[in-house]
């Protein structure tokens, strides 16, 4: 019982310090990270979905499907956080606004359309290379969030850690496929 009381007291103390106006729970870097990772994840989902109708190693299809569902969870979480912060889900489309984040990852190049149009004989290699670059782009966003002058929100920073770890591990698998 005494332990419980101590735990509650610590919890309350934690809540108190987080709720005061002088300690914002998020900053502009957090908002930008989420606003940039949402479309990055969505484009990644579009890319991995293209693998469903193609002849690819079973292991690669399993990885693609897991990327799709885990990134969808992240998108849902991120949208929820932005709503909670009363921040728009979509970003300021002025590219200059994102210079500090290494510029816009969503380049004009039509990655999805190019892959979709690729003949079967070329699809596998192109799929690996496009998806690898896409996932490493997410790592770059996450490194910015967790770097100097990055975000302050604990949830967003933990997401960034998970993005760095998971995408690096995905890339490790992608680079080991022989197509």
């Amino acid at each position: 019982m005494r332990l419980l009381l101590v735990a509650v007291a610590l919890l309350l103390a934690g809540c108190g310090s987080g709720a005061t106006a002088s300690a914002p729970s998020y900053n502009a870097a957090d908002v930008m990270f989420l606003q940039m990772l949402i479309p990055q994840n969505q484009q990644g989902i579009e890319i991995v979905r293209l693998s469903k109708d193609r002849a690819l190693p079973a292991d690669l299809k399993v990885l693609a499907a897991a990327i799709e569902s885990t990134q969808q969870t992240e998108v849902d979480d991120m949208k929820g956080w932005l709503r909670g912060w009363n921040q728009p889900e979509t970003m300021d489309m002025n590219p200059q606004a994102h210079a500090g984040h290494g510029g816009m990852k969503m380049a004009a190049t039509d990655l999805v359309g190019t892959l979709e149009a690729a003949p079967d004989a070329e699809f596998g290699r192109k799929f690996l290379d496009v998806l690898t670059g896409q996932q490493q782009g997410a790592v770059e966003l996450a490194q910015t969030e967790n770097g100097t002058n990055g975000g302050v929100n604990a949830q967003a920073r933990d997401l960034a850690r998970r993005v760095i770890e998971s995408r690096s591990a995905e890339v490790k698998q992608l680079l080991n496929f022989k197509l």
Partner: protein
Amino acid sequence: MTLKRKLFAAAAGAILAPVLVVVLPATSASAHGYISDPPSRQANCAAGKVPDCGNIIYEPQSVEGPKGLRSCNAGLGQFAQLADESKPWPAKSVGTTVTFNWVFTARHATSNYEYYIGNTRVADIPGNNQQPPATVSHTVNLAGYSGRVKVLAIWNISDTANAFYSCVDLQIGGGGTPPPTTTPPPTTTPPPTTTPPPTTTPPAGGTWAAGKAYKVGDVVTYGGASYRCLQAHTAIAGWEPPNTPALWQRQ
């Protein structure tokens, strides 16, 4: 901000900073590209085929330096491993015509791509100061070369003074010459299918383990709770069960 809060923030920063240095590579997030196949040295590092590569495993696309260099690491101290000829770099067996495939995280306008063997430029492919398309591959004729060869590929950016460097180790031709004595055979590298758990994963206690392949219905424990697998996958750091409700259902 009160003084107390400032002190707290400073203390938190002091506590967190060393951790972050270990876990996260210091980076100036701007972005880039490298050769994925035949695997460049940074690709082999990111694929886990070469041990002790340092931070390059998180950003194989970031080997960026001024134009005109002839080094595998663009002269960057933090990527010195790439220029270490004593490392067991695997060399892919190829014929005399080789197709090099690129990965990009940012499509910088390109002046050209150069391929060197030693001091000889074996290919120069124009980029026309355009953004690269979705995928880029170059077929290069290496007739006249055989045995173990190190190709230095350079992506020259047209709107900056910089270039991106990828060294690709190749074994050209069937029998060929034996590899130099400094290079142990690539059979000594562990098979890529077994993914060792990354050291950054916090030990949470439980049976869940990164690198393990799970099928629907498998049950694991993690952080004191039990989870049932909803979707087949190979577990990786960052996909811990509490964070991936699409993969795991808490029991």
